[in-house]
């Protein structure tokens, strides 16, 4: 059970990292996430049932997520619709897109292969260990690529766009292009997370996106509460730790007998506590010195 929990934490931390790129760098609350997460699963699982190899199917899922991000970016940059609303519009319409792709509300992998089979065959490994293997491999590649990206001129231009847009433009950066890039990258990564989650559970469904933005943000904030003064790569790793802790809290709640139908209110409760934490921290500190 520990293995499944950690494995799920690893897979969901990919979602947290995707959100980090928009929420922490651009300060965007990107609701597209709630649509691109299940979309990644739907596209990948459907592709696999059509005989596409799991690896290629996973990439198709990522691509679909990026396209969803592109749609949000177009509504926001060209249509001047606020980013929150743009995300909601895309998230809502993705519901129909997913139904169109699957032709039903959910689709099962049955006996079809999936990406976690690449992670099997380690001698003496406990069952479900492939979740951890694939999770670690995916995260290593992802964090490596993102770290490299932020060391490039393009990556720096992206960070500055979020940090000081006026200055970025004065220095010749087409900030709308950077925001588009960010939304595409973020939703591609979110879709990867959704794709892996669907493949690990053996089915994709429309409803998997509900509340995932809360899980992603909670992972980011738990990581930040635990660790301060981190460099960029460490901050991404903190999201991974945050995500695993979040999954552990949830599994503990389930073990304590909480009805799993009512888990969402606990998800929101955890995130709310994380968001309120800095305020209480200040009050406590302030109280000590007064």
């Amino acid at each position, binding site marked *: 059970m520990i293995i499944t929990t950690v494995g799920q934490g690893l897979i969901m931390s990919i979602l947290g990292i995707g959100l980090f790129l928009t929420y922490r760098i651009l300060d965007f609350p990107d609701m597209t996430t709630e649509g691109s997460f299940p979309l990644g699963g739907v596209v990948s699982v459907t592709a696999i049932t059509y005989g596409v190899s799991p690896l290629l199917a996973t990439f198709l899922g990522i691509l679909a997520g990026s396209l969803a991000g592109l749609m949000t970016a177009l509504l926001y940059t060209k249509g001047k619709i606020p980013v929150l609303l743009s995300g909601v519009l895309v998230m809502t319409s993705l519901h129909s897109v997913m139904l169109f792709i699957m032709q039903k509300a959910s689709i099962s992998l049955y006996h079809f292969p999936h990406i976690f089979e690449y992670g099997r065959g380690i001698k003496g490994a406990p069952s479900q260990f492939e979740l951890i293997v694939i999770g670690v491999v995916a995260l290593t590649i992802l964090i490596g690529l993102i770290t*490299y*990206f932020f*060391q*490039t*001129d*393009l990556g*720096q*231009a992206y*960070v*500055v766009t979020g*940090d*000081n847009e*006026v*200055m*970025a*433009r*004065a*220095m*010749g*950066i*087409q900030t709308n292009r950077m925001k588009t890039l960010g939304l595409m990258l973020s939703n591609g990564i979110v879709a990867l997370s959704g794709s892996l989650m669907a493949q690990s559970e053996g089915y994709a469904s429309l409803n998997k996106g509900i509340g995932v933005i809360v899980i992603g943000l909670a992972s980011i904030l738990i990581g930040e509460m635990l660790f301060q003064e981190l460099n960029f790569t460490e901050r991404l790793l903190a999201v991974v730790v945050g995500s695993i802790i979040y999954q552990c809290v949830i599994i503990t709640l389930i073990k304590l007998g909480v009805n799993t139908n009512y888990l969402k209110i606990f998800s929101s409760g955890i995130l709310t506590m994380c968001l309120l934490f800095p305020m209480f921290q200040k009050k406590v500190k302030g109280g000590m010195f007064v």
Partner: protein
Amino acid sequence: MKPLLSIKEGEVMVQTDHSTKKLLTNLELTIYPEDFIVVLGGNGAGKSTLFNVLSGNLRLTAGDIVYQDQSINHLSEEKRATFLSRVFQDPKMGTAPRLTVSENLLFSKKRGEKRRFKRRKIKDYQQEFYDVTKSLGNHLETHLDTPAGQLSGGQRQSLSLLMATIRRPDLLLLDEHTAALDPKTSEQLMAITNQKIQEDKLTCLMITHHMEDALKYGNRLLVLKEGEIVADFSEKEKENLEKKDLLSFFY
């Protein structure tokens, strides 16, 4: 001498709910290389509008703006960054707070360039950045790895100035860049600014409300009033000006 940039019959109108308002009218301005033009004017005189027209934030609604024999009125702010740079009044506006001093400098060294998926190699610039910050004389060189958001206002604004000039701009716009600082720091930054402009032979427009600075620095002085240039003093005329002459424009 060949002009660097000129505005011909420039006009900026804005539509408000019931009427149209002229922010700039009959604007005739020719800027020559190595001009250091001080711009004076009360609130609403059109100083900021003039700067916005030059930087591409605002388009002329009539007239033309010509840079090196080409009309640039259609050119976006981002494109103009290849030859123009700015320092804003608010120290927060000129720097990226989460980036270190070095990162800010490297970022601005590539002003106007296309940003590619290429490693930035920040270590290669260590010595250069040390030298250029050391020359300021305000200990900025000891903060190369400090995020810009943690610097004092004066240091942050001196960094903004470096960022605007580290890649030589054909035209530098200083928009009351010392106004947010305390008198001493403001004076220091103004001296640094003047030194940079002289050493690098920069062409510059500077908005200020300091009459003393307006008289002390620059080789030309423009006075704007209600969207028009009401005075354009040459270097010779400027030498004979006194504070009371300038104040008379404000009443």
